[in-house]
């Protein structure tokens, strides 16, 4: 038996054990598919930087081996005729794809409760959500099924579930990873991200999938990031900004305690902590919920029952193509996707475009300017909590879309500003993981990964914080 086949078999056992507990991290996986990949890698004598690693892939990222459904009825059973560049690169690096992970439908949500195929459960507490939208990827890593996973972010969808599940998650600079094969949601915000059992695992995966791709016109003309530098024991000379807007008076006491402890460790490591202000932070969620739905309403126009996916035609009884469009989309899309398509259509419609969409774009520029100003003042990275609370219970926020949107208040700023950001576990409160966030300047992934590797060694993320 080759090392690849052994790794595939062991991975299949881990996935089966985790899924048997009801995690429902995966929408599709199979031992046979893993073994097929292992035999192909063994025959090719693969020896890349991820040789023998098994990586789970969020179901909004195209792969020809498994269905790509975006956790939506409109793409149920759909098999992509091509694979995403990020998936191709991880295979070229010697990794196998474990399967496709659950998420909110078309990555629209913060809990996986909007998956058309049922939610995933948080391995730390099965009565609570894993976060979202990349909740299946986070739960797959946290359950021990895999050590690495691909997710995607439009407004914090890697970092928020990473924090809720107690794993590491990185959202790279916009353009760092090719979006080719990532199903489009909000094209000016979307970016493939990575999750790992620790910061180094996530960083190694990012190192492989990053780099220029001619198939994505927004991809940056940069070489891949490669492996991260080894963790340093000192952060002497590193200036870490602490933005007041992310630490409001009413912050959850467990989140505050974990953040305070992490800041103390950063200081112990020699970092200089500096109070800073990002005054437009409070406008990030409202700006996001105009820009993202507007772009979604345009991107999701392609699901019309004509070229691929579901067609609802009343058994051929609908005589008008527009009736087919409406029936297909009305029946194929779930409630949150419908809500966002309609919200996006509204803010882009005649008479409202300037008041909403143009205004939101101006506010987005102001949010970006906040970050640019702080980083120009010698701050190397910002430290904040990743989420305002630990993981919430199922059903707590589905009846109130706005309450769900506000769980992304600390993460969607980095998407609007295109800057890189990551979340790492910094402690537990009543058993629930708490995430700490590091935000960097444009293209400064290596800086935030260096700080995160040092902090990860200095903080006991499994310890209760109060």
């Amino acid at each position, binding site marked *: 038996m080759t090392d690849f086949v052994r790794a595939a078999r062991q991975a299949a056992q881990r996935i089966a054990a985790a899924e048997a507990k009801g995690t429902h991290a995966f929408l599709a996986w199979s031992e046979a598919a893993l073994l097929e990949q292992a035999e192909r890698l063994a025959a090719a004598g693969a020896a890349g930087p991820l040789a023998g690693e098994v990586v789970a892939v969020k179901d909004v990222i195209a792969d020809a081996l498994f269905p790509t459904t975006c956790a939506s009825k409109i793409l149920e059973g759909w098999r992509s005729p091509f694979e995403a560049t990020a998936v191709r690169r991880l295979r070229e690096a010697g990794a196998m794809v474990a399967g496709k992970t659950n998420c909110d439908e078309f990555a629209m949500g913060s809990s996986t409760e909007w998956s058309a195929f049922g939610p995933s459960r948080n391995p730390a507490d099965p009565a609570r959500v894993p976060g979202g939208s990349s909740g299946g990827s986070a739960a797959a890593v946290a359950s021990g099924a895999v050590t690495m996973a691909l997710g995607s972010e439009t407004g914090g969808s890697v970092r928020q579930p990473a924090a809720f599940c107690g794993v590491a998650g990185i959202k790279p600079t916009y353009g760092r990873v090719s979006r080719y094969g990532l199903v489009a949601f909000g094209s000016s915000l979307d970016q493939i991200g990575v999750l790992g059992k620790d910061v180094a695992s996530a960083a190694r995966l990012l190192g492989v999938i990053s780099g220029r791709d001619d198939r994505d016109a927004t991809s940056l003309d940069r070489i891949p990031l490669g492996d991260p530098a080894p963790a340093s024991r000192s952060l002497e000379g590193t200036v870490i900004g602490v933005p007041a807007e992310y630490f409001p008076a009413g912050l959850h006491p467990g989140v505050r305690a974990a953040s305070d402890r992490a800041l103390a460790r950063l200081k112990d490591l020699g970092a200089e902590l500096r109070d800073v202000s990002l005054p437009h932070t409070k406008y990030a969620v409202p700006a996001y919920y105009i820009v993202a739905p507007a772009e979604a309403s345009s991107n999701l126009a392609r699901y019309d029952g004509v070229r691929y996916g579901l067609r609802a035609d009343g058994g051929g009884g609908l005589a008008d193509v527009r009736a087919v469009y409406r029936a297909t989309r009305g029946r194929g899309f779930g409630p949150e996707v419908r*809500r966002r398509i309609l919200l996006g259509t509204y803010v882009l419609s005649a008479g409202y475009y300037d008041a909403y969409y143009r205004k939101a774009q101006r506010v987005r520029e102001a949010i970006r300017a906040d970050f640019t100003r702080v980083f120009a003042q010698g701050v190397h990275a910002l430290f904040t909590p990743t989420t305002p609370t630990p993981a919430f219970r199922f059903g707590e926020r589905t009846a109130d879309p706005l309450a769900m949107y506000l769980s992304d208040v600390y993460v969607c700023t980095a998407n609007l500003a295109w800057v890189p950001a990551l979340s790492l576990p910094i402690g537990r409160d009543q058993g629930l993981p708490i995430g700490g966030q590091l935000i960097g300047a444009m293209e400064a992934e290596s800086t935030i990964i260096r700080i995160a590797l040092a902090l990860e060694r200095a903080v006991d993320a499994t310890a209760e914080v109060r």
Partner: protein
Amino acid sequence: MSVTRRDIAKIAALAELEVDDAAAAELERQLTRILDYVAQLSEVGDDAAAAVDERAARLRRDVVAPDPLSRSPREIAPAFQDGLFTVPRLGELDRGDAP
């Protein structure tokens, strides 16, 4: 900003999305609440923004490349005939709801 049933009907038509009465009533309330929330953006002056990022999208050479699809549209489409996607004919456009 109050979203009305008529607004829902109009945007549902623009978005080519079937919305039944029960869903329309809930959407009226939810979209009104969301738009009330995002209205706080009017507090931000237009002078708060920095200069727009000038990085231009890099264009690739306009060359014909092999089709990377592993399966043809024929195998993917709900209905396909003689090299064409087939759909029911386009009915009469209603002046009231057509964009």
